[in-house]
């Protein structure tokens, strides 16, 4: 009988435990429902917005801006969430229904799926550079699903002291670029002419995005090249063409490697190695974007006087140098947001001139607003000169299954000697196949 009582007690505990849990859940749900019901009745109740970002460098700054916003709008709370691999995390969020109100992850696929709301009628567009508005406009619908507070640039950062000492000029052609590198190698054997951080595939991917794709962007212009990338217009892209941008890019990169003009550890060097080499004068040139500026200055503030900035040299004869001039710090409001008006209010707050100025100066990036005069960095005048002299290009609109990182891995294979140096069309063919496969998977 004692054993029987023990079994019954155990079963009862288990039963009541389950019922208890289930009641707890139902209580919670009721409470949630009550809260939502109350929200409908009383619009002045607190609203909570979620901001999802992939920009680690702005997390603290954004927290400050959020605090300012919340003190001005006590009924709206903004919760910032950062993820390192934001684009992938965003995919999971969309799939699971845990969608933030505002996000910095904006892709063409999601625009095609109506995941964002149209911001075309917002008041701040009159203050934004027309080229940035164009880059934020969806070429398929003509709607503007995102807004960017800043402009970012990428090109070749060079050591001005080394250039002055050796009497070098910024290269306007590929031959001049190679000649500069060769001079540095001969005159300064301890200095790496061009330092590539090849462990970081995103950085190698930028070489494809800005140099190889730069030829396409230059030839077609911003709108047509965006359309060509988004709609995979194979003829215009010419990825598999033996004389197209990918084959020429491969040939040029192999030329640099064969002539010993890049670092020997180009495949394993990290981003930190690249920054250190540049700041210490052990590297004469690096390919990077404006995002590196703050980090270089953190390592050694005195490097400011030594930094020069030039566009990427053209790969083809007859082409012009190119510089990335694209939208940076983009935001979109998701169509799943239950509080779009409050989300718009938050974006309007971010777009206020004093906030854009504060943000631009903190991340050392030029503002996209014409009415904001921010002292964003020591090479402000040089970059303005480059923007005027070189062809301005945008980021590539990738198919979501073929990221910049995937491009970087293909460049790694190239540098590791996978392709026969005498016939680099195989690289171009493989690139085209990978691109097409990724593009088709999203259709």
């Amino acid at each position, binding site marked *: 009988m004692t054993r029987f009582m023990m079994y019954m007690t155990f079963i009862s505990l288990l039963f009541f435990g389950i019922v208890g849990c289930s009641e707890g859940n139902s209580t919670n749900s009721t409470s949630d429902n009550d809260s939502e019901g109350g929200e409908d009745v009383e619009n002045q109740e607190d609203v909570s917005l979620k901001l999802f970002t992939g920009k680690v460098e702005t997390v603290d700054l954004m927290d400050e801006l959020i605090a300012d916003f919340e003190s001005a709008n006590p009924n709206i709370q903004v919760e910032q969430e950062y993820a390192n691999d934001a*684009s992938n995390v965003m995919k999971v969020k969309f799939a699971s229904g845990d969608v933030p109100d505002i996000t910095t992850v904006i892709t063409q696929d999601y625009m095609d*799926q109506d995941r964002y709301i149209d911001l075309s009628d917002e008041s701040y567009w009159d203050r934004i550079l027309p080229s940035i508005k164009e880059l934020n406009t969806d070429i398929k619908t003509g709607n503007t699903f995102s807004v960017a507070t800043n402009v970012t640039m990428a090109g070749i950062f060079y050591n001005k002291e080394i250039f002055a000492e050796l009497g070098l000029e910024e290269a306007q052609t590929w031959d001049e670029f190679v000649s500069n590198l060769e001079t540095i190698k001969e005159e300064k054997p301890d200095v790496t002419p061009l330092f590539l951080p090849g462990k970081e*595939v995103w950085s190698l991917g930028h070489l494809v995005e800005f140099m190889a794709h730069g030829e396409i962007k230059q030839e077609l212009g911003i709108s047509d090249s965006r359309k060509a990338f988004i709609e995979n217009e194979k003829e215009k892209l010419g990825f598999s063409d033996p004389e197209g941008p990918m084959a020429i890019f491969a040939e040029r990169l192999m030329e640099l490697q064969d002539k010993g003009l890049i670092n*020997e*550890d*180009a495949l*394993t060097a990290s981003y930190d*190695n690249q920054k250190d080499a540049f700041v210490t004068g052990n590297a004469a040139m690096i390919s990077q974007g404006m995002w590196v500026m703050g980090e270089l200055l953190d390592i050694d503030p005195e490097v400011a006087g030594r930094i020069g900035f030039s566009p990427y040299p053209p790969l083809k004869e007859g082409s012009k140098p190119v510089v990335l001039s694209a939208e940076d710090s983009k935001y979109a409001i998701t169509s799943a947001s239950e509080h779009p008006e409050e989300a718009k209010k938050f974006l309007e707050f971010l777009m206020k001139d004093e906030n854009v100025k504060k943000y631009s100066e903190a991340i050392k990036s030029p503002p996209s607003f014409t009415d904001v005069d921010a002292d964003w960095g020591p090479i402000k005048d040089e970059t303005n000169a480059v923007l005027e002299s070189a062809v301005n290009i945008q980021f590539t609109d990738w198919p979501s299954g073929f990221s910049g990182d995937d491009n970087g891995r293909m460049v*790694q294979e190239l540098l*590791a000697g996978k392709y026969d140096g005498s016939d680099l069309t195989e690289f171009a063919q493989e690139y085209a196949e990978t691109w097409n496969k990724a593009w088709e998977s999203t259709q």
Partner: protein
Amino acid sequence: MYSLLNRINTRLHLFMTVPAALLYGIFFIYPLIQGIGISMTDSNGVTEPNFIGLQNFIEFFNDDRAKGALMNTIYFAVGSAPLLNIFGLAYALFLDQNIRGRTFIRTIVYMPAVISPLIMGYIWYFIMQPQRGFLYHVLESMHLGFLNGNWLADSSTALNVIIMVNVWQFVGMTMIIYLAGLQGIPGELYEASKIDGAGYLARLRYVTIPMLYPAIKINVVTNIIGSLAVFEIIMAMTEGGPGYATESMSIFIMRMMYGSFTGYSTAVALIMFVVIVIPVFIFLRATKSKEMEM
């Protein structure tokens, strides 16, 4: 009443398995069934998937990158699992003897295993960096600079280096299990075999190894599973590069999963499941007959 009590008594053990069975069902069986379903679709993780039958599985065998990842994984497991067991057993045999400082040596050998493979990978990446790594400077200072090389950048050496690091890190774990096994062998068996005139090698072959079968089974199975599922150490040291030269199945699945190929990556995950189960099953069958002989 007695009959009811008797029935509860005999069924109680089944009842006690309910919580475990529920957890197993929710966290293993249900996702597995879901996974089988997703693997037969063209799901990209966001839009509505379409049923495509076994196309993803067929695609795997036509995908050079996937086959490369499979070969890398098998190569890693074939290199790693035996070395872990050979060195683990050697350490255990050595440190099972009465030698001075054996506790200290055991601690030193085991210590790397408690560190995350990701951190260990980064440490070795920094050690092995050409021109600026610790190893480079050590070899240079010993006038052995000619031995320096960029092993992680060379497709033919990168995976071997990762195997060595993995073995170095986890050999202590294998050693501990073997040591526990060795300490469970009755001393009388050794005394009897000595009386019968058996030397060290004979004792090792006819007493130690057979008595260690349970430990061998645990070590081999866990090492095979661990090696075939390798992820962190490769991500830290090479990120699967150069190119895809060291990309493992786990890394490939993760990249496909997040690269709009959710259905395909799920199919590859199921293939990986089979790849892991086959050698484990074969080994367990083989050792079962050996244990039966004992």
